[in-house]
């Protein structure tokens, strides 16, 4: 429902070059399968000129693929057509061509391994006697499922092999970082000091030390090595805007709302994390949506014990009225009506301490924003990306396909940025209440009860009525639901998802959707251009030129 799986997408004629370029610009790291496909396609063109900008773009895509999947058979096949570049992984690959080929892994096997959710199986492959390519991809699989411990064992083992070390160290360094093992990350960085991934990780480490200048120089160095990294334009722009602390002091009237149905422990975990975040004097209300697995009294006692003196209002409903109706119920409480900003949380999230500060800063930095939402992470000791900003992938008459909620599960810092988008994750989002009232944004639509799609639909309503939506990837929210190892949906649940998607599609005509799409693209693109303009003076010449090439391929974006 959400997006067409990649192979079908290609089979159906695929996206045009301009939308691939846009996807590349937005996502920073393309799905390697997509990268191989388009990189290869561009290079196969007749009369290609290695110095042409198209060849440059293609080479960048292929270099990305090789950085992520150094043993990927399809990328290796195209090595010869890729433009020469001194040093780094490419020369190593050429040097050990035969060895690498022997350890290579094909596209189908990659897809199969990455489709495995059972961690024991992945561990078996990662630690077994399979070729280096298989072992490495199994590690990516473990990372994807959030299993840090097994990843660390397997990754350290793989690092013992000299060839693997040379080729995989940059990705593995990010893996160590994601699993919280900074020492191993630093160690891995020593083996590949000049790869763009390494420079980016060094920047990330610098940011942990609040050393923005060091971070900036790492990013610029990275761009010098590999100009084809548009996400770094956003990251550089964000470096100037890291001061969020004072926003809470502005004495905004904020209400934080959440609701639960039968999830006592996750609700208390959510509350705990909410209370330990910086929320100033925001009001907090929890709606008990007719829970049957615990009594109202039990909930109140547990909430009081967790809140330790902070006022948390609990509203009990006799039955479960579903998520959209529950949100509306909270939204229409008298003190919520009066609030300047209203946040909705799911009952199973872990919040970063500065989430509200970031969001309030967003409202100031991006005027006209009606709602702002986070980067969603899977739970686990090595969290994978669960949800980022979304856009239309395909629209038609009563037809909607969204871009994937997690186009790339491995966090390489490429989504830690802000920009306007079509829709954000609804597990922790903040609304500008006054703006919503002014624009006449309708309530959450109860046809999507008990849940799913209601927040997506609400985001579409916001754009339709002239509001904007902002994605803030600095706010990293762990969403405990949808863990990689969770049971697959039942047929009844799929039917529910499909049914709701169809209900949503029927609400929008082609021209509605095209209007929304135009507005979103315009805002999103304008922000990119602002960022590019701001950081341009610092960029290495090749990077500057590359970004200009990107803009050319992406085409002109019309004002809606």
């Amino acid at each position, binding site marked *: *429902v959400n997006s067409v799986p990649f192979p079908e997408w290609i089979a159906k004629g695929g996206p045009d070059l301009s939308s691939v370029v846009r996807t590349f610009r937005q996502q920073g790291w393309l799905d390697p399968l997509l990268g191989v496909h388009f990189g290869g396609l561009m290079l196969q063109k007749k009369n290609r000129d290695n110095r042409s900008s198209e060849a440059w773009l293609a080479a960048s895509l292929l270099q990305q693929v090789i950085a992520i999947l150094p043993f990927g058979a399809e990328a290796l096949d195209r090595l010869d057509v890729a433009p020469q570049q001194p040093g780094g992984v490419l020369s190593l690959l050429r040097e050990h061509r035969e060895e690498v080929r022997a350890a290579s892994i094909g596209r189908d096997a990659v897809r199969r391994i990455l489709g495995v959710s059972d961690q024991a199986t992945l561990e078996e492959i990662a630690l077994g006697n399979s070729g280096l390519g298989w072992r490495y991809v199994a590690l990516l699989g473990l990372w994807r499922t959030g299993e840090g411990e097994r990843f660390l064992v397997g990754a350290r083992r793989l690092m013992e092999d000299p060839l693997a070390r040379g080729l995989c160290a940059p990705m593995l360094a990010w893996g160590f970082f994601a699993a919280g093992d900074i020492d191993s990350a630093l160690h891995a960085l020593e083996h590949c000091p000049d790869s763009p991934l390494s420079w980016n990780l060094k920047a990330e480490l610098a940011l942990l030390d609040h050393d923005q200048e060091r971070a900036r120089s790492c990013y610029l160095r990275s761009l010098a090595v590999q100009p084809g990294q548009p996400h770094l334009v956003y990251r550089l722009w964000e470096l100037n805007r890291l001061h969020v602390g004072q926003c809470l002091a502005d004495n905004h009237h904020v209400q934080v709302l959440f609701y639960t149905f039968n999830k006592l422990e996750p609700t208390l975990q959510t509350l705990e994390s909410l209370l330990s975040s910086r929320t100033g004097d925001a009001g907090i209300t929890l709606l008990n949506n*007719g829970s049957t697995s615990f009594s109202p009294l039990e909930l109140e006692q547990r909430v009081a014990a967790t809140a330790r003196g902070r006022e948390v209002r609990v509203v009990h409903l*006799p*039955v*479960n*009225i*579903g998520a959209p*109706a529950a949100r*509306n*119920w909270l939204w*229409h*409480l008298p003190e919520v009506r009066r609030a300047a900003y209203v946040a909705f949380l799911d009952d199973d999230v872990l919040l970063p301490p500065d989430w509200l500060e970031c969001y309030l800063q967003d409202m100031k930095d991006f005027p006209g924003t009606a709602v702002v939402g986070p980067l969603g992470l899977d739970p686990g000791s090595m969290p994978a990306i669960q949800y980022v900003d979304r856009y239309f992938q395909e629209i*038609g*008459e*009563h*037809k909607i396909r969204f871009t994937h909620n997690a186009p790339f599960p491995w966090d390489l810092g490429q989504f830690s940025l802000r920009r306007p988008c079509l829709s954000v994750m609804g597990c922790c989002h903040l609304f500008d209440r006054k703006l919503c009232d002014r624009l006449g944004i309708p*309530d959450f639509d*109860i*046809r*999507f*009860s*008990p849940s799913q799609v209601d927040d997506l639909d609400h985001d579409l309503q916001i754009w339709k009525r002239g509001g904007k939506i902002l994605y803030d990837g600095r706010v990293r929210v762990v969403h405990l639901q949808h863990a990689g190892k969770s049971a697959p949906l039942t*047929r*009844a*649940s*799929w*039917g*529910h998802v*499909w*049914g*709701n*998607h*169809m*209900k949503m*599609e*029927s*609400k929008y*005509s082609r021209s509605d959707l095209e209007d929304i799409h135009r507005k979103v693209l315009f805002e999103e693109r304008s922000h990119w251009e602002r960022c590019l303009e701001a950081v341009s003076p610092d960029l290495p010449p090749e990077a500057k030129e590359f970004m200009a090439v990107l803009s050319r391929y992406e085409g002109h974006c019309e004002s809606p």
Partner: protein
Amino acid sequence: VNITMHHPSFRFLSAGLFSELNAISTDEVIHHLRNFLGNFLLDGVIASAYLNRFGQVPSTEWNDQINAWLRYLSRKLVLLQPFNEQARQINVKLTGFADEHLKYLYRCRLPQNIREKILSPRVNDQQRRRRIFLDLLQNYTYSIELIDQLLLLDLEQDIPMGSGWIDKCRVPPPLQRSLEGLVARYCLLQGDCERARMTIEKGSLDEHDEISLNHAAEIYARTGDTDRAIALYRASLALDPLQVPVSFRLAELEHPFTPDPGMLEKRIVICLYSYNKNELLQQTLRSLATTERGNAQIIVLLNNCTDGSQVMVDAINREMYDGLVEVIDLPVNIGAPAARNWLLATEKARNADYVAFLDDDVEIPRDWLIKMLTVLRNNPRAGVVGVKILAPGKPRHLQYLYRNIAVARKDLLRISLDTPNFNYDSGVYDFVRPTANVMGCCHVFTRAALDEVPWFDIRFSPTQMDDIAHDFDLCLKGFKIMYCGLVECVHHQMSGMGRNTSADLIRLGNVLGNDVKFFYRFAQDLDGLGKLSNLSLVPEQPISQQDVL
């Protein structure tokens, strides 16, 4: 309404019996027909649909069973539409017997150009249509086609049958009896039983025509002559024992249902919920106030109404209910299934022996509750009872009787029709019977049923399908669903969808979306659902069918 939905995981059959029958195998069509016959009596459109479908089977594949059903259907179609030449031709072809009537029908044919004019559906305005036909009748007094159409127009517009024109008609004597039979039938449907009785007593009754017998039986039942009615229904069943509703109706006449007023002493709660239908809700509450309710408690839930319903309900509460109605006024609209659950979760409902739900747009008769409760008492495994739902206006139209499962395949789920296609109410459905689903605008649940299936499924929010899913859940748990046709509820539902307004498309998307949810919700229970049919009531092929007309 045409709407294109794109999805790889499912596809919709367009609405209607024709597309449904085209989607299933010949064997399944026979099951489908048997199930239909277990629910309702055939009418012209439905009989044609099955006949067409069987007609598509290559004749090399015809076996005794298909042959028998073809003959059954074609004969029935001739009886239902006595002036339908094509039906008679098919019947002649299938049986090999000559049909005397055909030559008279040929003789009464209109000139081709005139014929095309009256068959043209372009004139939608019924009054205008009637005027055009009356003009034509001046010149073609013998035209049975014109007369047929005019009778139908009189019926639909509730004009006394043939008033101002029928005396001018000159049809060949052999067709006269069929014509009068039709007049009697339509008089009954208009509620003019005296005239209907006079007409059949003048000799229009055809003792070899079970449809004529059924109508005559109902005419006598309605004019107080139950014995005659019983005799006629028996004669009808002898001609065609596959008429399941006739069996139920006959049983009702032979052993009339006796309501037990003592049932009102039980703990009863009557629940209503409403969303911005001030006037209809007012009408409903006034209708309810005049009925016998014993000590039943009433709860009205207002789903964030913004049309002044609160003030109206308060006023009626004081005026007609001594302020005893409990009003729940919610700050947001939570949708129908959640509203039902909210009501069920009230202390009163939790402690009730019986919980009734009424929609906010119904009119109900004085004794509705006593009768419904008596049905529940008489049927110990009954979980819920519903009633005969009529559309508002005259003549009386059936809006919803009862449904079960027409097709339950792993890739296709179809619920049976809610009424026959020709849905005027002759009274033949005035009986009590078990089924699989009754209309949710007026139904009563037992405590045991609600204990077993406590909630309506909010995935069907804001409305549609939640009551059907609840009934099927009850069936799967072994409860009986009872239909009580002895209570008539007029339902002022919004008329059907318009054409292609965006609001209609959104509503349709909602219906279709809920259909998808519905299918997958029951995907694991298709075997159980498949048993909710009438196959045990109707034999695999019709027996000893009379072919001669």
